[in-house]
């Protein structure tokens, strides 16, 4: 295949589509109810599946009343460990990336509350639901280990998937000896559940050994490989359709036990099977964000320069797998310090295994770090923004590498100006608004990695003038349908609304993972390259055709736009793709593209998106209910393909930060281990009334190294920095430094009472 030559980094010119605030390509489908989400499909002969979840957190299932379930009208089949078919590979193996140890009724062991322990198939959803309830399980329970005090601590070999659990830069003991001031804070973060609006769902149907699946998925290529491996079939025999995801946030990158149960059941009964998790079932087998207990110690010189930064995180995981939130690593890349130490301790508890939740590591890590930094600024009696500028990292503190680009200073400046930061009183409790509410202002620094995943795409130009582009990539709401099409169209030299565009299907070239805030850069680069490659082929045909006005123009002498190639020296001389291909008698040309990052750039530079978030809170002075009255974020993330959609991502991310700071908390009963606020009335996320004002500023940034197009990501960075900005604003309003998230009314009240007691 002909890769498009990578142009000098950062100098690729995109055409007229990228950079435009186009509305969503799939907008009409989404506002008319026509967008096809997985659960909307209804193949002939469909059976509904509902799994029964464990009511204990550890132990064994010793009986299930399958007779009662089977006797319920409409129930067709009950799968239990006694009759469940096995996977081709043990569910405790992790044969491909983005897989996790899971429960597929392999035995009667219970590892956490909410684990699937049986599956009921029925002609109707109502019958399957009641059938599952009628199973009335009996257990042999062992004591649940839940909470920071009850888990089993261990020293991890790695955090997330393979990152070293500890790092040291410089000589922390030596630097501490020089310190004039020391600040230390401890902050707890709770278990948080993704809770995409669309629950996990699968519709599985078999035709011989061919499997067709409708399932929202963020990583179609990896999912297909994993499914084929676990089910012992050829990957070519797995068709996965995922045109629309009703949100993902990390949890739809992995295929979990429940989906495998549905696939096995469909094969077993020879009928299509649909399984949709109930909302309460979203609090078990489909991952969550680890709870953390983080301690950040900052040692400062007499002027407020950080000398030593020590960040430790106790992060929870399950008893049977190893994902750990890499929270402490946040301290490696934000503030300059001659000495940095980050470390993690694992804590095994009886929950499902955690995983990546939007902004993994950095959301939790900055939630603690930004509070500590704010406390340090106050210790120095410095404005929190000035303090951050004083400790600005010109190179990546963790690696010493230069940044590929870093417009954080501009983010601070533009954000502060827009917010009106100037004149903020240094002391807490000084501001009240006209209605008497305590008012506080806080700032936080936002940061997120700019990874790049190998991705493939193809593009086609046909002799009838139609053009198209494809990749398997996924739109979980971030705007891939639109932004990726814009980039493909620029590669093809066409207006975006005149190209056929397809994503979300395993039959398309592997567009890699929609995750890590890397999808636009990765899949978009591949699409742009594929389009360019198709145009190159058309141009070559024309330039070698004596009948073409482009004959002999040479590579640099030709430009594409509007489905037409023309001479650079005389734009009037040119012809359409259709004319070129028709005359040559060629029905179509297909371009292939890969997205890639220069290896040398990856080795040489530290690559991040940066941002600054400013928060204003209003707090009732007696009752301590909190409302975030304003959020202003300024972000620099390289080239922005679609400002409208990028702002939506950033605004949404900041509201996730608000949610982290004030709302989200998965509560497990410490005795039973069961999640007991496992619904959306108990597990709060913000509603519209919680968000009076949120605003994102896109700060101009040119990143010549991140990739050829200079694109970084905006999907996750909004959360980072925001959590701390809100916590710091709460402190500025009340004088109470939050020690846990979410910040409770109770904590602020008790803070006041403690202060009164002196």
């Amino acid at each position, binding site marked *: 295949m002909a890769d498009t030559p990578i142009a000098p980094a950062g100098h690729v010119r995109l055409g007229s589509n990228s950079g435009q605030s186009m509305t969503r390509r799939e907008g009409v489908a989404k506002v008319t109810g026509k967008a096809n989400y997985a659960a909307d499909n209804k193949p002939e002969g469909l059976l509904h599946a509902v799994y029964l979840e464990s*009511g*204990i957190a550890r132990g064994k299932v010793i009986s299930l009343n399958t007779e009662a379930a089977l006797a*319920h*009208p409409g129930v067709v089949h009950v799968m239990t460990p006694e009759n469940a078919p096995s996977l081709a590979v043990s569910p405790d193996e992790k044969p491909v990336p983005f897989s996790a140890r899971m429960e597929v009724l392999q035995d009667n062991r219970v590892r956490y509350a909410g684990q699937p322990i049986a599956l009921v198939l029925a002609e109707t959803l*109502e019958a399957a*639901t*009641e059938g599952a*309830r009628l199973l009335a399980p009996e257990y042999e329970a062992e004591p649940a280990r839940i909470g920071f005090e009850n888990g089993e601590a261990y020293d991890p070999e790695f955090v997330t998937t393979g990152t070293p659990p500890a790092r040291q830069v410089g000589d922390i003991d030596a630097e501490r000896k020089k310190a004039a001031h020391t600040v230390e804070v401890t902050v707890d973060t709770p278990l948080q559940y993704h809770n995409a609006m669309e629950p996990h769902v699968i519709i599985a149907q078999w035709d011989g050994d061919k499997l067709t699946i409708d399932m929202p998925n963020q990583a179609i290529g990896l999912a297909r490989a994993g499914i084929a491996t676990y089910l012992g079939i050829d990957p070519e025999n797995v068709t996965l359709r995922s045109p629309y995801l009703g949100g993902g946030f990390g949890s739809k990158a992995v295929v979990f036990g429940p989906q495998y149960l549905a696939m096995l059941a469909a094969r077993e009964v020879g009928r299509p099977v649909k399984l949709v998790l109930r909302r309460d079932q979203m609090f078990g087998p489909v991952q969550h964000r680890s709870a953390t207990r983080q301690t950040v110690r900052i040692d400062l010189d007499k002027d407020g320069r950080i000398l030593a930064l020590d960040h430790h995180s106790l992060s929870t995981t399950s008893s049977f797998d190893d994902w750990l939130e890499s929270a402490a690593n946040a301290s490696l890349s934000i503030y300059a310090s001659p000495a940095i130490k980050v470390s993690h301790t694992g804590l095994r508890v009886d929950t499902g295994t955690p995983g990546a939740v939007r902004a993994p590591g950095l959301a939790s890590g900055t939630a603690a770090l930004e509070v500590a930094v704010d406390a340090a600024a106050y210790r120095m009696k410095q404005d929190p923004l000035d303090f951050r500028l004083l400790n600005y990292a010109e190179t990546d503190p963790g690696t010493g590498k230069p940044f590929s680009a870093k417009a954080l200073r501009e983010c601070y400046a533009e954000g502060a100006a827009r917010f009106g930061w100037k004149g903020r009183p240094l002391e807490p409790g000084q501001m009240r*608004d*006209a*209605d*008497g*509410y305590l008012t506080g202002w806080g700032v936080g620094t936002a940061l997120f990695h700019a990874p790049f995943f190998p991705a493939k795409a193809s593009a086609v130009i046909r002799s009838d003038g139609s053009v198209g582009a494809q990749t398997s990539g996924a739109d979980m709401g971030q705007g891939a349908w639109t932004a990726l099409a814009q980039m493909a169209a620029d590669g093809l030299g066409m207006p975006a609304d005149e190209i056929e565009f397809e994503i979300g299907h395993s039959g398309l070239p592997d567009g890699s993972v929609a995750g890590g805030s890397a999808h636009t850069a990765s899949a978009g680069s591949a699409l742009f390259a594929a389009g360019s490659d198709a145009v190159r082929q058309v141009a070559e045909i024309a330039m070698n055709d004596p009948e073409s006005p482009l004959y002999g123009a040479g590579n640099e002498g030709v430009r594409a736009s509007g489905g037409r190639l023309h001479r650079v020296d005389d734009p009037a001389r040119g012809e359409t793709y259709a004319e070129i291909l028709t005359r040559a008698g060629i029905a179509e040309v297909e371009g292939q593209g890969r997205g890639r990052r220069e290896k040398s750039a990856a080795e040489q530079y530290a690559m991040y998106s940066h941002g600054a978030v400013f928060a204003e809170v*209003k707090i*009732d002075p*007696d*009752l*301590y*209910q909190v*409302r975030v*009255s304003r959020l202003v974020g300024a972000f620099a993330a390289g080239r922005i393909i679609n400002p409208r959609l990028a702002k939506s991502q950033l605004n949404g991310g900041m509201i996730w930060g608000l949610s982290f700071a*004030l*709302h989200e908390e998965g*509560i497990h*009963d*410490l*005795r*039973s281990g*069961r999640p*007991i*606020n496992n619904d959306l*009335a*108990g597990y*709060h996320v*913000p*509603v*519209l*009334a*919680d968000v009076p004002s949120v605003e994102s500023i896109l700060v101009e940034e040119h990143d010549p190294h991140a990739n050829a197009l200079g694109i970084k990501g905006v999907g996750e960075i909004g959360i980072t920095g925001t959590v701390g900005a809100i916590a710091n604003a709460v402190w500025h309003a009340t004088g109470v430094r939050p020690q846990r998230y*979410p910040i*409770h*009314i*109770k904590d602020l*009240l*008790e803070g006041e*009472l403690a202060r009164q007691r002196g």
Partner: protein
Amino acid sequence: MNLFDYKRPSSIADAVAAGAEPGAAYLAGGTNLLDLMKVGARKPDVLVDISRLPGLGEIETLQDGSVRIGALVRNSDLARDAGFAKAYPAVAEALLSGASAQLRNAATVGGNLMQQTRCLYFYDQQSRCNRRQPGAGCDAIGGETGKHAVLGWTKQCIATHPSDFCVALAALDASVELQGPDGARSVSLEEFYTLPTEDTPGGADVRPGELVTALTLPADAAHFAGHARYIKLRDRTSYAFAIVSAAAMADISDGVVQDIRIAMGGVAARPWRARAAEAALKSKAPTPELISAAAEAALADASPSGDNAYKIELAKRLVHRAIEQALAGTPQTIPALPGSVFAAQAAGR
């Protein structure tokens, strides 16, 4: 949910006959009952659909000046009834502070009275709960108790009643009309909810087959229209149950509190009338000291049922605030954020 029979009687008499059968439950808006059936907390054998019964959908002012609200009036219709909202502004505000617009459009006032506690352990079917199964025990005690009762609880049950509406109603001495197999009766709304005892978990006092047919506000309830507020403290700006809430309504002339009503929500298994607080202010010219004394009196008997002592202090402060705001006068219109502590901020925009 379990299989059930479904009946839609066309008269109250037929409904009550059907409802008196063992295992029957009345269905109106369904917003609470269906939810409870989905989690398995209720498993009726028969649903008696009363949603179309004639004569239960009216808001009437009776000759003696009292107001009778049919049990099937939808929460939103009552709150939006201009005459009603003008006469009983705190009731309207309480209604509008509850749930969401969609739920208020479906839920009936009778159903609001009959709604069950939101205790996490009542909902968690694996937990022991005396309300669901008398004698089983209470797993809320010693569990996650931050939102539980601080008044009127016993070892049997520490749950709270979740309604906002009922708090304002209790303040106004509302009564509940019921129709049962043995005829009609009326009971004060406050006493409609029995508190837990040492041996029983408490709950709504509904006898087998009894159907809530109406709510009545006595004639003197309209005296408080000029000085009435309902405030609800919650951990989300909207669409959340109260941590604690308070209704305060005063009848003031010549600078003297002729009568005052104070009730609290989220603190007990019933909307809690704070009569000692009322006594502290009645027939007096209000002063900050008196208001503080009233707030103290409202919580004088409170004690934490778990990790919720903070609610006692909050409730005091909230009662204080509600009294202050009631004395300041009812707002011209219901605030954009009804019942919110941020109502003033919203009004300022």
